[in-house]
């Protein structure tokens, strides 16, 4: 296990990553699917209004990508700080 300073920096990096990913999480679901839906609906994806599509399909695809990106990025952070995980 690393020193006290390492641990602090590790936790800060983890929190930065978490906040970044949760912002995307919020934007694709609550943003695209609900709040900005009216604006996005003027565009269409194969006949589906874009906001509606995000609410029913698109956001779910992004959720999956977010979790796997998180796994990958956390592995990188752990390697950088020498944590075996």
């Amino acid at each position, binding site marked *: *296990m690393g020193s006290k300073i390492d*641990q602090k920096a*590790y*936790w800060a990096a*983890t929190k930065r990553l*978490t906040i970044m*990913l*949760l912002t995307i*999480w919020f934007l694709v*679901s*609550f943003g695209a*699917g*609900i*709040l900005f839906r009216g604006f996005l*609906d003027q565009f*269409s*994806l*194969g*006949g*589906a*209004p874009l906001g*509606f*599509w995000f*609410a*029913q*399909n698109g*956001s*779910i*695809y992004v*959720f*999956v990508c*977010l*979790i*796997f990106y*998180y*796994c990958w990025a*956390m*592995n990188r952070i*752990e390697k950088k700080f020498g*944590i*075996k*995980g």
Partner: protein
Amino acid sequence: MDQTTWSYIFVSVTFSLYIGIAIWSRAGSTEDFYVAGHDVHPVINGMATAADWMSAASFLSMAGLIAFLGYGGSVYLMGWTGGYVLLALLLAPFLREFGKFTVPDFVGDRYYSSFARVVAVICALMISFTYIAGQMKGVGVAFSGFLGIPFEAGILIGMVIVFFYAVLGGMKGITYTQVAQYCVLIFAYTVPAIFISIIITNNPVPQLGFISDVKGTDIAMLDKLNTVVTDLGFREYTSTNKSMFDVFCITAALMFGTAGLPHVIIRFFTVKSAKAARVSAGWALVFIAVLYTTAPAVGAFARLNFIDTVNEAVYITDTEDYDTRAAEIMAQGNKPVPEWYKSWEKTGLLDFEDKNEDGIMQYRGPDAPDGIANEVNPNRDIFVLANPEIAQLPGWVIGLVVAGGLAAALSTAAGLLMVIASAVSHDLCRRTLFPEMNDKTELRVARLSAAGAVVCAGLLGLFASKLGFVAQVVAFAFGLAAASLFPIIFLGIFWKRMNKEGAISAMLFGLISTLSYIIYFKFLGGTQSGWWFGVSPEGIGFLFMWGAMIIGVCVSLATPVPPQSVQNLVEKIRVPGANQT
């Protein structure tokens, strides 16, 4: 062979499979029983989590719900998947690093208080019992609807099966049966969806069919659906009558509720490490997304197809011979009521009342432009159930759907039973009342409580179906999880200063406020005009969650700092691998 025979074959084969797995994976220790020895592969755990998560409601009701609600159904789609992002980023890896058996375990240790542990046990039990009643009811419905077995007997059969693998195998047995159940249910869901997608859009992938043109035309499927439903006097499919703020709150309550549900959280205790817990959450969502991205397509196709085949069809009564009468009607250039409609009519899930006595089935919305009253009332479960027949698939596919529905209900019921059993045997008996109890006795107590929980769940299923309140209390399970468990677990990891006073007041506030709001508006005659900020009882958990967080933080700041040992514990669980020796 007819449908019923096929259903019997599929149900018996899958049930024998579950029992076989239970015998093969018997639990030998409390570690095996509670967390499957902390040794489940992340992908396997992801699959088990998906089965654990997708209940009878996801499998049978959700597509139909979306078919009727249109855009309004999005709250379930986003809410029940987005929660996994929260789980993966904020809770699962840290709770796994903590390395114990249950959610109250974490609450009790992190907040150094038996009282906090007991309050967490109460929350976990209330959430799990409301949820499990719905599952047992689903089992009863599946048996009575398809196999002609009485409702009560159906629940009894379900109880015996779950009893067998939950009591014998504990978490270990449940994990491997859930994997089998996932395979059964996802196959049963996607096969009819692929066929109906080909019929309507000529695209074999339902997710793509959803955004394709109707077969042989250049009109987009959703455009066509919007035109068709508005012509009949319904709201546009891609719109909703709920306010934006209410949609926001319901989605959020379902998301945070998902992340706080104990039966989902404990699945992540079964993997090897924090790293494995993260990956496992990703796989769980992949397996869930297969069904959840198919469901909106199924809902839209089913609605379109239902209107297409049933509206303006000439009705054929039970006294007439279907085939000869149908041929006659077609010879006159009209369309007869479809055959699948007649076969499902017997189940009471479809209802036709010829109000204008013209022998034609008029399906209309509340604002029908031609002023004709609606005569057809379909139950929302019908869309998934009748899909194979609507798509004219062979009888064995219907048997598969029956087995799939049962798999969905049983896998969720088993996961909930584990929460109940471990809350009683581990948190109440071992950690609170009889700390000197040894492992062997605890295992025996755990088996006994699982057995007791099966019996209670069965009785609740019977009771709930008589009162018909299951659908209403499910909202409560999510609201409660969001408002009572999520805030204190989250703050317990991310805010070292959080102490026991703060945690106890936050949990009690979340529990009591959500409970009161839902009981008042669901059971004591509260009306929509009284909703706070226009938020429905389904979404109120989100607002009370913030209330609980604020109270927790304020009370913590006003009371002593938690002991150094607890602060060290928090530091430890933030860094994966620190706990390993």
